């Protein structure tokens, strides 16, 4: 395994060195190839991000490669990174599945002359080009500020439950940078509400069935449970179903994250009180633009923060809000 990757690296470096002068003079003429590796392919968020990246690619005349694994798993993502390195794109936009495990493979790509842009999730600390640490080489981190997203969810939920009662976070699994940050932001903001008690986080492994049962169990022991923050799609969906099963619709409010197409119904029938919708198309678009800027020798900001839209029953019909619903159309 070591030998193979070394040989690949040697070949890539030789090719890059040999063709170095050629590519820099032809940069303007040949359409650069940029690859996008999503966190996982089967997810409305990443499908929408792909759309945004495609729009930017079309506008800039970039050839966009898209490859990803069907599951959020570093052991699946790493071989894809290696396969993409072999295609020698000018840059890779990637949503790393693990803060640590992807540092090595991406460093290999960087050493082979491929620029790296982290989208949505990050490696190392997410703060790049500072001269410190072994995960410093990516040129930019383009994402929503998930800590802020968690704070916004906390504020909206606190207001909805009258600033008192118990709440808990329904999360996926530990060590995913985005959901970790949302939970952190949520818990931090909740410290500002002395009458709200934050119960222990429940991990559901991205299974709605488990999230529902966990909700019912927490509700069973904490009858003053007033709110739940679902840190991702299936967490919120499961908790929402748990509320329904427990007959507590209206009594326990769910703050969801992300806006798949089913969000319209879920907001209107009260399953969710609100959702924090990210702007994945923006992330894809600006991620690609950042990569293109670097590849054409222009400066790039090391962090690009995209926004959120808080969607509620009241505003979901407004086209300016509804346009942020994640869809593949």
């Amino acid at each position, binding site marked *: 395994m070591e030998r193979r990757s070394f040989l690949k690296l040697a070949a890539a470096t030789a090719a890059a060195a040999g063709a170095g002068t050629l590519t820099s003079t032809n940069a303007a003429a040949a359409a650069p190839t940029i690859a996008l590796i999503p966190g996982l392919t089967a997810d409305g968020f990443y499908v929408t991000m792909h759309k945004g990246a495609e729009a930017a690619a079309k506008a800039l005349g970039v050839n966009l490669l898209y490859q990803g694994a*069907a599951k959020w798993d570093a052991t699946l993502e790493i071989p894809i990174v290696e396969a993409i390195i072999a295609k020698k794109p000018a840059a890779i936009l990637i949503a790393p599945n693990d803060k640590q495990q992807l540092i090595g493979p991406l460093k290999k790509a960087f050493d082979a002359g491929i620029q790296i842009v982290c989208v949505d999730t990050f490696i190392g600390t997410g703060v790049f080009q500072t001269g410190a640490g072994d995960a410093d080489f990516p040129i930019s981190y383009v994402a929503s500020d998930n800590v802020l997203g968690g704070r916004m969810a906390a504020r909206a939920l606190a207001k909805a439950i009258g600033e008192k009662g118990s709440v808990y976070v329904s999360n996926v699994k530990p060590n995913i940078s985005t959901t970790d940050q949302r939970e952190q932001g949520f818990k931090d903001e909740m410290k500002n509400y002395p009458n709200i008690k934050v119960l222990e986080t429940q*991990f559901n492994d*991205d*299974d709605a069935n488990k999230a529902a049962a966990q909700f019912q*169990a927490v509700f*069973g*022991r904490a009858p003053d449970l007033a709110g739940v923050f679902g840190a991702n799609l299936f967490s919120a969906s499961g908790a929402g179903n748990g509320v329904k099963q427990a007959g507590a619709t209206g009594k326990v409010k769910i703050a969801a994250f992300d806006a798949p197409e089913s969000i319209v*119904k879920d907001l209107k029938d009260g399953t969710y009180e609100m959702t924090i919708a990210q702007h994945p198309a923006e992330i894809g678009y600006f991620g690609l633009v950042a990569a293109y800027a670097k590849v054409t020798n222009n400066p790039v900001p090391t962090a690009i923060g995209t926004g959120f839209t808080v969607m509620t029953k009241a505003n979901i019909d407004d086209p300016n809000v509804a346009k942020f619903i994640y869809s*593949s159309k």
Partner: protein
Amino acid sequence: MTLAVAASPTSRPSLLIRIAELRAWLFLIVLVIVFETWTRIGYGTSFLFSVYNLQAIAVFAAMPLLLGLGQTFVIISAGIDLSLAFVMGLASVIAATLTNIGAAHLGMNPPVAMMFGILAGVAVTIIPGLVNGWLIAYLGVPPFIGTLGMYGVSRGAAYLFAGGMTIAVDNDWYSQIGNGRALGFIPILVIITAAACLVLHYLLSQTRFGQHTYAMGASKAAANRAGINVKALTLKIYLLSAVMGGVAGAMYTGRFSAGAPQAGEALLLDSIAAVVIGGASLFGGSGTIWGTVAGAFVIAVIQYGLVLVDVEPFWQFIAVGAVIIISVLVDQGQRRYLGGRQAE
């Protein structure tokens, strides 16, 4: 019920044997007692005598159990069905898609659109079921590999049909099936699962199909020589398993008002664990539907109970794993005591 039981020389072991066979139920009783004590002391509430808790546990166990029912037949036949993880998701996605098409394009009213979707979702699972059966029975592919291949194919198919997202369904009738209560307190989902248990129990214990399944699991060679068409039997078993995956998937769509390709992914190992805890041997030849029911409830009670008494979430994984290991050890012990394992 178990065919390959060696002669036990004395009458004394029969009590131990009975205990070993019913170990899943004993586990369940022990767990319930533990949690009952814990909730009474810690929270002043009851674990068992709470309709709320019973409903929650029953609904939690329903879908893994539906998968486990089909898996029971497969495991008794000395096989395994890994494709259920995504056959369930495929059914869920197709059910959602066709319910929507029925309502929007074929002018069906909600209950008809729902039936159309459910039937389509279950029907589509016939394909992976037949492919599994054909690969394993007629091409001699080992069940682990064959169903692992279909795991991948179903996964890709489910994601392709869903376009990488979940398919939202807006159908009150369908939502009622997944979430409604009969008589005010019995979840319809539980009634459907219970009906499936009764049907499959009858199939396994009272029909020739069931008896032949045991025979095949105990000794394929002997079953062949006895004139059982093992190939056709294998095909039927994997078909049954896939169809149960289809039922589970259709139920998922009703419950969450959305079809999700990964609906069954987290449930696969629970379904196998339920069968094993319930007394089946992974080598085949033994196992019962009621054992699987007990196994599914053991897993649900542990996972629900630990959250209810506010134990650190990671202990749940350890607990379920420990129960599986103890089950297998008891199973091994039982076999050694009886004198030799099942012939393969």
